[in-house]
């Protein structure tokens, strides 16, 4: 986990900002080459997400929960931080969510984010049927897999209309299986 990364050269600035706030933030580093336009203006490689309700430590725990639910080793922390930002926004407008999150985080203990994966999995399995876990699972799937970072990571090419669809960009470029006879497919119009 890279939340509150110590080596961050912008740490001082973040600390000052954090000092002025009562709520938390998540910060981190982006691996070179990631597409992170959403939260880190190029060419900066450091990112920071402000939280409106949750404290930094709570945010770090939730980020670890999200990564344990959907572990993709080379996917940037920044993508998981967006899950936390979304759930923080929910908590800001819904008291019930706020209570559920607070209770859930405190139940996992302050060292949850620092524990190894198998310990985190064991801890989450124990609370799998709880509203806290189910809320986190749903939010993780909804937000994480819709981020531009996830699209790039999993190879999904996104919006296609402005590029003319895939008609001339590989919709039929699979050649490791036999070609389909024309009568069972159809002509490629161009």
């Amino acid at each position, binding site marked *: 986990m890279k939340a509150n990364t110590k080596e961050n050269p912008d740490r001082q600035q973040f600390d000052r900002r954090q000092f002025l706030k009562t709520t938390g933030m998540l910060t981190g580093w982006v691996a070179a080459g990631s597409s992170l336009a959403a939260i880190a203006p190029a060419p900066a490689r450091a990112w920071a997400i402000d939280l409106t309700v949750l404290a930094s430590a709570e945010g770090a725990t939730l980020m670890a929960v999200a990564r*344990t639910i*959907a572990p993709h080793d080379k996917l940037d922390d920044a993508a998981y931080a967006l899950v936390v930002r979304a759930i923080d926004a929910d908590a800001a407008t819904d008291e019930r969510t706020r209570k559920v999150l607070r209770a859930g985080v405190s139940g996992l203990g302050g060292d949850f984010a620092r524990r190894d994966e198998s310990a985190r999995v064991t801890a989450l399995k124990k609370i799998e049927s709880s509203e806290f876990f189910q809320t986190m699972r749903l939010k993780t799937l*909804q*937000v994480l897999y819709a981020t531009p970072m996830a699209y790039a990571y999993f190879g999904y090419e996104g919006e296609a209309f402005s590029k003319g*669809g895939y008609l001339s960009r590989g919709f039929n470029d699979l050649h490791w*299986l036999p070609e389909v006879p024309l009568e069972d497919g159809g002509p490629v119009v161009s």
Partner: protein
Amino acid sequence: MATIDFKDDTAVVIIGSGAGGGTLAHELTSRGIKVVLLEAGKRQSLDSFSQVPGEAFSQLTWLDPRTQTGDWGVARDFPTMPAWHCKTVGGTTVHWTASAPRLRPWEVRAQSTYGKIAGTSLIDWPIAYDELEKYYKLAELRMGVTRRNDMPGLPASNNFKVMYAGAKKLGYNQVHTGHMAINSVTYDGRGYCIQQGFCVQGCKMGAKWSTLYTEIPDAEATGNLDLRIESTATRIEHGPDGRVNAVVYRDREGKEQRQKAGLVCVAGNAIETARLLLLSESVKYPRGLANSSDQVGRNYCHQITGFVWGIFDKPIYSWRGATLAGVVEDEVVNNPQRGFVGGYRIELLALDLPTLPLVGLPYGWGRDFASIIDNYRNLAGLFINGEDLPRPDNRITLNSNVKDAYGLPVANVHVDEHANDRAIRKHAQGQMSKMYEAIGAKRVVLGPVPPATHNLCTARMSADPRDGVTNAWGQTHDIKNLFISDGSVLSTPGAANPTLTIVALALRQAEYISRQMKAGEV
């Protein structure tokens, strides 16, 4: 565009602008009949369709609250969302994936073909197949269906090549890119498919038939259509003679309006159509409109569905290309030796991110779950579309414990699966798994049953008024000037994706209504 007076008691009011309502509106207005078309949703356009999955979903989907009961997987896995259909001008034809097969002759004689099956309420259709076929031909011309008339098939996509190779290994013969209401060449003033993928986001090319940009603008051009968007029907009223005479609805400001009507056609998709009839109860009709048979909302069918995913060691990029352009039709037969009655289609499918993990995969989390998504590039997808059997207690009822934005009870959807339903799904999943395994899949993943996209039979046509809600023209048995014009009227669902049948029946109903109006019969 016409402006029809609220007090005009000669107007035909159609509720819902999808495959049934939109087509009917075009047909009636082109015959010189004044139509008020009420649509609960907003109007989108090719330009306004979003290709961001979450945005497209919220732009188009019916998200008003509903509840569920029963033992089917959807009630457990998607408790707040029994069905996935649209709330927008054009209805579910905006997000549909455009598969347009015909029912087979034996499927419209389900009761005679399958015999008596305990726990079901099977009937035969009150329409002869020859008669239905005439309107299938008209519907196919109207919609531009591939492999019909002069419309070539769609070209084979990567995802289809995988399906095709697997199907051929299993010895299937009827495998092709489908009868799709998607232009493979320019047709009817609309362009051809450029293989954008994810047809559910709305087709920005307009290559896929949708009433939004075909029937509805054509109806507007007649000068006889008064389309009222963001207008949610809440009640159909009747006079002392029992005939319906007005539709009460909420306009976009939430203000109640009352449109007088000479004839009313309900086409709100099978759940809302049944709900509206039930909500319209009165002293004269205490069980709701057209419900003397107690059949309104009953016999709810949704077709047997389910995902099968194959993970391969080479890329497929299943998102590239028309989502559903591929079908195996060999299993569309009634062969009880397979352990069930009725048939099923194997259809091509791809899901976007994040819909794949949210809807397409079995519940899970952690390493194993994530490893499937790690293979998104190498994932091929299939979908079942099979016949489910009608059951009297699989039904839409009003749930007074949960209210909508206007304080009205929401629909509760109750489904207990029949053993035949489970047997079809199991057989289909087995065959589809074998297809992928036969060509070297590293892993096959069986997905859950998603929210129902084909909602049917809740106001079904029946020869005997005791068995259903309408006659063979969608005219309710009880009330002569009240018609049902959507998938609710299908007597049984069959294994064909239903839109072509809904359009065919709407074309037929339009002829009947205009004939009856001319003769002063309605």
